[in-house]
């Protein structure tokens, strides 16, 4: 009869664990999914935010639920939505807006913006960060953890190569030339140090957008129904990326892993890397050498995509829950808090007001590299996003990877990707 006890115990325990939190009449529950995409004890910060907010608002209980990466979180949120039990709020990629609207999962933030204060608050974000969240004249997402691509350079290696350690490359030509000086080979001809490294795993399209924006071309339209992968300027940008390794030998061949790129930088295997400003704190704490952060070099112009996550409110929640979530969103993005969040993580604080706070002014003075991403905002464009975003992006990613591994030419890869994108977007036009 031992077996039976085990089962009964197990069943009770399971029921106890599986029981969802019951909403009492007085306290509004706000389950809140959030991803973590940069290094550091992010879950601790978010938990602290929730605790502080709940203390100030005793009738609201925000329950932060860590859901993994951006990919994991959108899967979780939409799966839960389909099962009828979505979270009330979630931080998701700003590029997921179309998908969320198509799945009828979210409500526009405008629904809650009633007072003059609220209007001022919504208008107070950096324009560039609001772009991806705005569809059909409405704002669907509140900028929360946003970033741009930046270039990190190893000042020590610059000195070794005879370059001025305080002058990062300003143009594509300069980047290629400097990278050539920074690439080292050992006696057997193997490259031990690459001049520049742009990761191509996971979401190569994001870094690619840096190159295309700099080459003066936009990859998707605002309505998210049209893509321009086969534009000659896009192919040109891709060719440049391929040439960096094929022609100039200053960039690793094949696919470069996103996750190991900061470590490659710290191990001095790459003298310059392109990656998110969100890695700033990580690199700052672990790099054993002097480094700099620069805006991405100019092609025909300067440019970078924005990146990161917005705060969304879900439709299948009660009006009370939605209002509570809105309150939380406003609270999170108050200048002082946005400033604190930016300092702790390396994300770009989302409003000019945040940068004007004492804390952020001091931090910027102490550590100027933190301002580079913000200064680059004036050149920033919306991140690539369309309907059926995951699939269309995959078509682009696959094409980029095919070209970078040499199995297709730049032109063929982009033309194939364009064809696939058009097929997928047909029903949305």
């Amino acid at each position, binding site marked *: 009869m031992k*077996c039976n006890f085990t089962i009964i115990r197990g069943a009770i325990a399971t029921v106890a*664990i599986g029981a969802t939190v019951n909403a009492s009449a007085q306290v509004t529950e706000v389950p809140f999914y959030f991803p973590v995409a940069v290094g550091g004890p992010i879950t601790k910060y978010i938990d602290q935010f929730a605790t502080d907010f709940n203390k100030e608002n005793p009738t609201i209980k925000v329950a932060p639920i860590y859901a993994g*990466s951006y990919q994991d979180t959108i899967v979780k949120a939409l799966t839960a939505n389909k099962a009828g039990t979505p979270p009330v709020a979630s931080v998701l990629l700003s590029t997921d807006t179309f998908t969320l609207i198509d799945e009828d999962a979210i409500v526009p933030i405008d629904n809650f913006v009633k007072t003059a204060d609220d209007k001022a608050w919504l208008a107070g974000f950096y324009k560039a960060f609001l772009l991806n969240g705005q569809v059909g004249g409405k704002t669907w997402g509140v900028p929360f953890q946003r970033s741009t691509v930046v270039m990190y350079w190893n000042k020590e290696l610059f000195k070794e190569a005879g370059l001025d350690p305080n002058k990062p490359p300003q143009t594509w030509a300069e980047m290629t030339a400097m990278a050539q000086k920074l690439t080292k080979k050992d006696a057997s001809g193997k490259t031990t140090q690459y001049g520049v490294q742009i990761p191509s795993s996971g979401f190569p399209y994001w870094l690619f957008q840096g190159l295309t924006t700099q080459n003066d071309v936009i990859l998707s339209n605002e309505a998210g129904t049209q893509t321009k992968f086969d534009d000659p300027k896009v192919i040109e940008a891709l060719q440049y990326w391929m040439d960096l390794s094929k022609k100039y030998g200053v960039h690793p061949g094949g696919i470069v892993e996103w*996750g190991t790129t900061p470590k490659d930088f710290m191990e001095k295997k790459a003298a310059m890397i392109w990656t998110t400003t969100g890695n700033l704190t990580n690199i700052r704490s672990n790099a054993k050498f002097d480094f700099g952060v620069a805006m991405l070099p100019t092609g025909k112009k300067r440019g970078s995509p924005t990146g990161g996550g917005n705060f969304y409110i879900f439709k299948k929640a009660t009006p009370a829950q939605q209002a509570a979530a809105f309150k939380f969103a406003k609270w999170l993005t108050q200048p002082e808090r946005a400033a604190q969040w930016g300092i702790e993580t390396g994300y770009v604080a989302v409003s000019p007001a945040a940068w004007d706070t004492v804390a952020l002014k001091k931090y910027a003075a102490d550590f100027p590299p933190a301002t580079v991403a913000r200064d680059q905002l004036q050149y920033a464009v919306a991140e690539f996003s369309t309907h059926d975003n995951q699939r269309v992006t995959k078509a682009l990613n696959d094409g980029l990877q095919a070209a970078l591994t040499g199995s297709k030419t730049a032109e063929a890869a982009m033309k194939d990707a364009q064809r696939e994108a058009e097929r997928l977007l047909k029903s949305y036009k």
Partner: protein
Amino acid sequence: MSAPSFQQRASIVDTVAAWLLAVLWILPLAYAVWTAFHPSEFSAKFLLSAPLTLENFERAWTAAPFARYFFNTTVLVAMILAAQLVLCTLAAYAFVRYEFRGKNIVFALVLVQLMIMPDILLVENYKTMSQLGLIDTLLGIGLPYFASAFAIFLLRQTFKGIPKELVEAATMEGASTLQILWRVYVPLAKPVYVAFALVSVSYHWNNFLWPLVVTNSVNSRPLTVGLQVFASTDQGIDWSIITAATLITSAPLLAAFLLFQRQFVQSFMRAGIK
């Protein structure tokens, strides 16, 4: 009698080859141990003079609620095993003791699950679970596995091999069907139970894809899913923390195996899995 040539020590070539393979095989674990106990800078450099540290374990433990994950996984695995033992014993017993029309067909249907595991039927099972309201619960993770065709198959084989005389003796003593099961069949099948338990525990402790799909939050997340979301490459890989987390999550199974190696192998042997 002198031992024939086979039973003497294995040849040098064999020994070297076996050792080489073993070293290769243990390399990842060895690396994990090295990296977990040394600071980050040494995760790619193997200097013997590098300082030891427990910092990685500390950081790994606080970075994700591993205590909760451990609890979830332990309960999950225990629950699944318990359910499997009961349900499958009953089923195997029924197959052995009773005759009914279509018995073979039913048995064949059971065996279908050997091939078509719940993992493959992800999408459909997820729908069922959400209709039952079991998403994000441990029961939701475990339910599809409660009826294990593997267990039924094994137990049926074993039960079939139990001598009729024992059963008859028990019947004559006036034992009921269930009592016969409990007093004759089960004790004799102990090695099989142990072997199966080992397989079940290690399978479900390490199961990933289905729990990933079914769990949403820390409430029900098991170790494997917890480890994956924690080590996802978006964050930039820091192997010292990842390996520390890896060691933390695999420690129980590893320790159990190291301590009970011989019993492990022996139970498989006695189970006579042929």
